[in-house]
């Protein structure tokens, strides 16, 4: 294993009197597939969103920080939780450049007005990468589409759930970010499609991507993830290698 790429430190998010996320800290290394599991309402999605800076800021509600580290272990970006220009600057440097996000509601999170091809090309162009047709097709192929060309002129509402997920994977990857948060990418998909999608993610991790994978699917976690963080009511209750943690829990 190589160096840590993203670190969440002492994250606390509260709503009303009860904390939704209570002092969560963990780190993800380059090439690591870290699964975050837990019951619904345990704060999985919320901590994922906090890593991308999508938690709407209200003073006194969010504290803790998210840091993205370079190869030499120094912090490239630190996102403070205090509102202000420093946070905005950090988020600007972070979003899309260092951290990508695969949202839970994949189809709704695609722009309904543009074709898939245009959206991928836009993401590539914004990331300053080549955005001609070939690069776009390549980005889609990388996300697990064997024949990306048929997809290019489709509008998102015509895609199936599994296709929309894979398009989101393509979009998340086309930013070129070395770290990705995938929020329940397999929910609502058929088993074989699930397995293929996770295999795709696993392959990308083997290629050096750092991935936080928020999921319910313990079986898949056991097969594919390196490490697991178990959340319960906003707290980390277990951490460890996937095979160890899931073996105990599944019984």
């Amino acid at each position, binding site marked *: 294993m190589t160096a840590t790429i993203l670190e969440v430190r002492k994250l606390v998010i509260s709503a009303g009197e009860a904390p939704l996320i209570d002092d969560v800290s963990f780190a993800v290394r380059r090439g690591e597939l870290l699964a975050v599991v837990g*019951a619904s*309402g345990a704060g999985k999605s919320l901590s994922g969103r906090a890593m991308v800076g999508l938690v709407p800021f209200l003073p006194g509600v969010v504290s803790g920080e998210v840091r993205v580290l370079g190869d030499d272990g120094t912090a490239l970006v630190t996102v403070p939780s205090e509102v202000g220009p420093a946070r905005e600057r950090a988020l600007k440097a972070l979003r899309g450049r260092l951290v990508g996000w695969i949202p839970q509601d994949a189809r709704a999170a695609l722009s309904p007005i543009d074709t898939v091809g245009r959206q991928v090309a836009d993401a590539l162009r914004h990331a300053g990468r080549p955005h001609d047709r070939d690069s776009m097709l390549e980005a889609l192929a990388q996300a697990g589409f064997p024949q990306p060309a048929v997809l290019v002129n489709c509008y998102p509402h015509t895609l199936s759930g599994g296709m929309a997920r894979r398009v989101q994977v393509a979009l998340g990857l086309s930013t070129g970010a070395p770290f990705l948060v995938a929020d329940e990418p397999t929910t609502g998909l*058929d*088993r074989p499609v699930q397995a293929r999608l996770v295999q795709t993610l696993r392959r990308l991790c083997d290629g050096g991507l750092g991935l936080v994978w928020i999921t319910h699917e313990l079986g898949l976690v056991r097969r594919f993830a390196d490490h697991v963080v178990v959340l319960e009511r906003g707290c980390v209750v277990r951490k460890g290698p996937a095979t160890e943690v899931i073996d105990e*829990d599944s019984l």
Partner: protein
Amino acid sequence: MTDLLRMKGVTVTFRGGGWLRRTSTCALSNVDLSVQEGESVGLVGESGCGKSTLARVAAGLVSVDSGEVDVLGQRVDRTSPSVRDVQLIYQNVDAHVDPHWTARRLLRESADVHGRQDADVNAILERVGLSHRAEVAAGMLSGGERRRLGVARVLLARPRLLLADEPCAGVDAARRVDLATALLEHSGPSSGLLLITHDLALVQAVCDRVVVMLGGRVVEECAKIDLARVPHHPYTRALLQASGQLSGAVPLLQAASSKGCPIAAQCSSARDSCKREVQRLQRVPDAGASTNKGVAHRIACPVPVESR
């Protein structure tokens, strides 16, 4: 003993798509199933195998393309309003209560419909541990509390036939058996339970009889006690191995559309005929008739039957 639920050769096909591109998916094909008075039957299978469709057919929510469905001795011809003595606990039961109504109000409504008293409402609130949350709108309850509320509502009806579709999903392992037992004990001696789940261990803890489904078909049917003994359908064996009751590596078996057996492509003992034609349920010549209360053991695979 009379049949509370009796299905014979039930086939359900879903049609979809636009007028240009018609799709049809066979959700159930030629399924026979019965639940008798005082019996609890476990229906096991992967998601997408047709378990939930089966429950919806029994509740009269889905019309069948062919076959017969009798519920409490009444023929269910097409989508007909459900019989009140049949209750269905949905897979995501927490989404099945009006989020704007309080727990007590919802239960009062059920009590009204099913002729129960306020005392019953209080008792059931106590039983599921919602007494202190009774005046909170269902939408403000946590997912687990909503789930318990949904179950409470169904139990209040004291159904003769209870169809429970993954009632324990999202409930942690320790409390699963407890919840399933609650379902069982609430139904009296003359009522029946159809427990639909992918959790084989739960079925073994609660049910008398087990039905295994794969790709819209019943592939094995046996008494609970028979589960512990070989032989089995390869798919059942894989399920047992996955739950740690049989040793050996778990083979990766996933249902795929095929003319024959859905797992023929991945099955190590598959024959040529498995890929080409549908395997029918065959009775296994039985050795343990004294312990399995006369429940026939039937498997839709030639290999274990012949090996017997």
